[in-house]
């Protein structure tokens, strides 16, 4: 009986190499794999027809629709509300928020000094607008034709919600992308 068992299992070969593979290599590979979670951002094309933009909010029937528009240009960010630019006090003819000095990633992934969009200031302005118009959820984002997609994504993130420590404040989650400024 003992003889048969030892002959049947055939454990004469050295399992060290296979065990190295199984116990060391595969867990190492698994831990070094970065599990990336894919998320999506919903964007709609401009709706033709009645929308919440066309109908003024119920509590202020005399107001024109908000039509909040954020435009990204080479010089900075311009914010339009009710077809009027929010002026920058220092530079009335320029963008609402000028680009500031900062750091960004270049093509190779290194951080370099460059002029970047002032996202914090934009969040401030958008937050104030939300406080003034709590029912409004639509925002139109537009940009110059050569603006990079990553900046559009950053602006969409900034205007979707604001993190106040632990609390999240919803700003304008319904984004409509409009054709670029020619």
């Amino acid at each position, binding site marked *: 009986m003992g003889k048969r068992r030892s002959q049947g299992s055939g454990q004469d070969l050295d399992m060290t190499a296979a065990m190295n593979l199984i116990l060391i290599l595969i867990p190492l590979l698994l831990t070094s794999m970065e599990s990336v979670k894919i*998320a999506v951002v919903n964007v709609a094309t401009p709706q033709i027809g009645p929308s919440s933009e066309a109908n003024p909010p119920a509590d202020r029937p005399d107001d024109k629709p908000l039509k909040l528009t954020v435009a990204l240009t080479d010089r900075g960010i311009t914010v339009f509300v009710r077809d009027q630019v929010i002026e920058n006090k220092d530079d009335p003819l320029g963008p609402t928020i000028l680009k500031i000095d900062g750091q960004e990633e270049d*093509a190779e992934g290194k951080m370099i000094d460059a002029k970047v969009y002032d996202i914090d200031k934009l969040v401030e302005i958008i937050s104030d607008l939300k406080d003034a118009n709590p029912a409004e959820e639509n925002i139109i984002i537009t940009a110059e034709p050569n603006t*990079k997609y990553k900046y559009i994504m950053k602006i969409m993130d900034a205007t979707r919600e604001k993190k106040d420590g632990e609390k999240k404040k919803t700003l304008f989650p319904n984004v409509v992308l409009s054709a670029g400024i020619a």
Partner: protein
Amino acid sequence: MAVKKANETYEYLPENYEEEILMSRKKSKTGRESEGGQKLNINSLMDILTIMLVFLLKSYATDPVNITPGPDLDIPKSTSLLQPAATVTVTVAKSSIVVDNEPVTVVKDGKVEASQKRGGEDAYFIIPLNKALVEAVEKKRRLEAINPTIKFDGVCTIVMDKESPYRLLTEVMYTAGQAEFSNFKFATISTAG
């Protein structure tokens, strides 16, 4: 006691050599067990690996959005938490536009060539992209006719490289709009949490 024969030198086997051999075999057997070395049962380890493999295959196969990142396609990060859905996917990389794993047109310097657009350089309508999208829509409509539970919802997932210019994005969205897509989902890497 060693007895030397004429042409052989070997140790004289003790009389009880059979018993000794059996004893040593038994000892080595127990010795092996107490060491816990060579007689290793790897059934459980193979179980773990098989289950891990099956799980990885399953999650790879059922992921609705399949992105192969590389120098050609580097998608941006976002704080969004929305889950991707299984829809028609348009992938806009640095060198080409691909619809559902079928290459459609070539992109150079963030622009589609004027010959591929209806109306020339300044136009928004990309002809081969529209053709591929219209075909995809037709396929979905046919499926809808056969199976009423599947509804064509006009949603298109756009996977775009983060260095692409806004102009290319508007062209793609306009062309998709002409093919009856009205809602878009932009795929991003989630940085939330």
